[in-house]
């Protein structure tokens, strides 16, 4: 039966929305390991060199026991520092493995369910919605709500509060006009960013340059030129347009650009690109670029999972009747697309495609043009306490004698 097919849970396909659930902690584990590895590499090389040098010096009689003691203290301090850092990486690793464990067992609960009508599936799906909601809340920066929700539902291990919170912090700092936090993040993820050909760091440096030029004092302008030499000129082959514009920007101080563009209404097109560079909107663009890069790096989808679920779900549920003018059953109907909550939202998506009609059995036409299933009409007539051989329109409430009804055949 067709419905049986539709209600079946196809396991290998049912977890599409849940990929980031496991991908993210995995990516974080790798990132955590890389940082740990880098720290060990750095500290141990230093300690090893120090050890060798002080041993040689001591053997050659070039250093006193006090010197040896001093270098031993330095080594100890370094190793203790390393231990501290490594321990925190180990804690993070433990947390991530715990999350992976919790998530894998949450997802494997599904393998015991085979149809969407299973009560357990409904529970599971409800929890999935909760997860999608928290993901949405976090991505939109509603952190307090996200935390409240995750705690209420006891599912901290199933959502990524920490990751998104630190992302939001950096995004916020960019929106407020500061590049420092984002640059620090770039530095942490240097190798991976280079691998994915990200232009984020360049754009951040570019913005720093614009800010220096904007200030227009001699000091700042000199600094701007040094900054450009160090961070922008090396990329003149990768981003030729930006680098050329950056050079040109020196000839277009902000006040003049503002004056010319406001007078000329954009006719003097030579000023327009520079006006764009001075525009405060760039900060918002940088914030968006950062979020995009961040999500790309951690294998997170570009838009909130709830968006993906809703656009696909609303489309699948939507029928031409849902936004029709005479959908009289609107509001009182149980259709989610017709509901107060989602009706407006569903306007953005196309309606579902059907190749077969889905109608009730034994359709009857009422004199007012409305068609209902026989069973429904009889049921409603009985409930309304109508005299025998009468039926009542479920929507309009009109009462008709049964012999005025006509049979409808749907092929």
């Amino acid at each position, binding site marked *: 039966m067709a419905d049986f097919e539709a209600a079946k849970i196809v396991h290998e396909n049912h977890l599409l929305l849940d990929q980031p659930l496991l991908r993210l902690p995995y990516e974080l584990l790798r990132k955590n390991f890389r940082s740990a590895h880098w720290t060990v590499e750095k500290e141990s090389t230093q300690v090893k060199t120090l050890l060798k040098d002080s041993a040689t010096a001591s053997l050659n009689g070039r250093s006193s026991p006090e010197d040896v003691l001093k270098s031993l203290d330095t080594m100890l301090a370094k190793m203790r520092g390393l231990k501290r850092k490594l321990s925190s990486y180990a804690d993070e690793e433990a947390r991530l493995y715990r999350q992976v464990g919790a998530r894998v067992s949450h997802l494997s609960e599904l393998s015991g369910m085979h149809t969407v009508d299973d009560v357990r599936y409904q529970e599971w799906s*409800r929890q999935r919605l909760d997860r999608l909601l928290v993901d949405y809340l976090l991505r939109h920066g509603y952190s307090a709500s996200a935390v409240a929700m995750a705690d209420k539902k006891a599912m901290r291990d199933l959502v990524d509060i920490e990751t998104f919170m630190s992302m939001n912090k950096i995004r916020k700092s960019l929106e407020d006009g500061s590049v420092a936090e984002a640059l620090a993040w770039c530095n942490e993820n240097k190798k991976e960013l280079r691998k994915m050909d990200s232009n984020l760091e360049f754009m951040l440096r570019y913005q720093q340059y614009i800010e220096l030029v904007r200030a227009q004092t001699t000091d700042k302008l000199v600094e701007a030129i040094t900054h450009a030499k160090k961070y922008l000129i090396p990329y003149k082959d990768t981003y030729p347009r930006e680098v050329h514009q950056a050079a040109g920007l020196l000839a277009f101080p902000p006040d003049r650009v503002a004056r010319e563009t406001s007078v000329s209404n954009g006719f003097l097109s030579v000023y327009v690109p520079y006006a764009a560079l001075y525009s405060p909107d760039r900060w918002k663009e940088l914030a968006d670029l950062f979020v995009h890069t961040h999500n790309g790096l951690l294998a997170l989808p570009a838009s909130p999972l709830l968006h993906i679920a809703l656009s696909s779900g*609303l489309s699948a549920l939507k029928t031409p009747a849902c936004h029709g003018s005479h959908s009289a059953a609107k509001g009182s109907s149980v259709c989610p697309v017709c*509901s107060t909550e989602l009706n407006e939202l569903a306007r*953005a998506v196309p*309606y579902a495609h059907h190749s077969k009609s889905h109608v009730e059995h034994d359709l009857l036409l009422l004199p007012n043009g409305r068609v209902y299933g026989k069973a429904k009409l009889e049921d409603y007539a009985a*409930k309304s306490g109508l005299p025998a051989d009468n039926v009542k329109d479920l929507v309009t409430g009109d009462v008709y004698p049964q012999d005025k009804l006509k049979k409808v055949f749907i092929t």
Partner: protein
Amino acid sequence: MEVLQNDLRSLNQASRLTSAVKDVDLIIAELTAAREQVAATLDTHTASLTMTKLQNPLKERFEAVNKDLANVSKAQKKLGKSLDKALPPKPLPTEHDAMEDRTALINRAIAMHLLREGEFEVASTFITETQDNPSLDLSPHSPIPIPTDTGDADQSMSDIDDEMSHSMSTTGTTRHPDLLPLQSQELQEKFTDMYRILQDLRSHNLMPAIEWARQNSEALEARGSNFEFELSKLQYVWLFKGPATNNLPDDARNGRSGALSYARANFGRFQARHLREIQQLASAMVYAPNLADSPYAAVFASDTAFSDVAASFTREFCSLLGLSAESPLYVAATAGALALPRLLKYTSAARAKGTAWTTADELAFETPLPQRMVYHSIFVCPVSKEQTTEANPPMMIPCGHVLAKETLTKLCKGTRFKCPYCPSDGNIKDARQIIL
């Protein structure tokens, strides 16, 4: 997924960074010991001897740390492999985010979802947080006028319901658009009521529900709902069973006599519509000693009666608020997960062919959903294979067969046409538009 679970379990606990921490600890111990030796004598010879002797062990220790790290990395790679196997990466379709820039609407849907699920605290945090961010404000909606002078929540609620049924009866099929988006505060009060009544129902106390149903009896009846009678009937049955089952005090208001007096006091109003059932309930008195073998056994079997009545209470309550019983957000998200594989298949096929995704009115592929999730009748014209819409409505021809209007127009020769499904023919003016 089970494989992944097993793989995860078998991943060696030792292949964690903690073992590297332990080895670093050993290095610190060696260094501390060496430092003590040097400090104890402060003698050049001891110092250089200690330092020389320290070289090899420390080198080995550092190698051990590196080995630990290699093991950690190996374990992670293994995890990555079994993750790829269990959940092969399939990029989600994010090129066309239809929900982008609709934050206000989504926020409103979420707020209503939280309220209806009874998550009042989360909802209030959320509403405050969205309002603090003016650009993401909840979409503007005008509040429904609530008479505040009555002071009684139930009272004001029945007023609204009166108003609602009034507006429904006067405007017929169209509802006032501003009537439905209740403000969160009002919505919260209503759902607080709902959860209170549900709580009572779960502990087998029907009275608050009956009271609610009585206050809203007009609106309920207008919907053709027998909920008030169903509740009263259950109350009768519940009393009838007596203190042994219902654990209520054993007095005149309980047991069969209690049921009888309850019936006398309350069933009168239902006589017109439910006479037969009332007769059944009354006649059951005769069979009281062996009810289980009587013709009325089914009426009195109340195993699931309370959970059934709780479910219909939720449905009735929500529908009087103009809401559906199940959270639309939940249904939509579940449907989304079910339809996503098809969407993904289609988008990747379209990408491979180089044809762009067109946001036409209709999806280009079928997304079968379980019967439960089909809410409207869908008519696909058997000739044109197109779904009927308002512009192209279904038309019934005299023989009772239904075609889309466009099909019918094409079929016409002059003003007459022949039915494609039976031998009869007809005139175009005899075809009439129907509403499915």
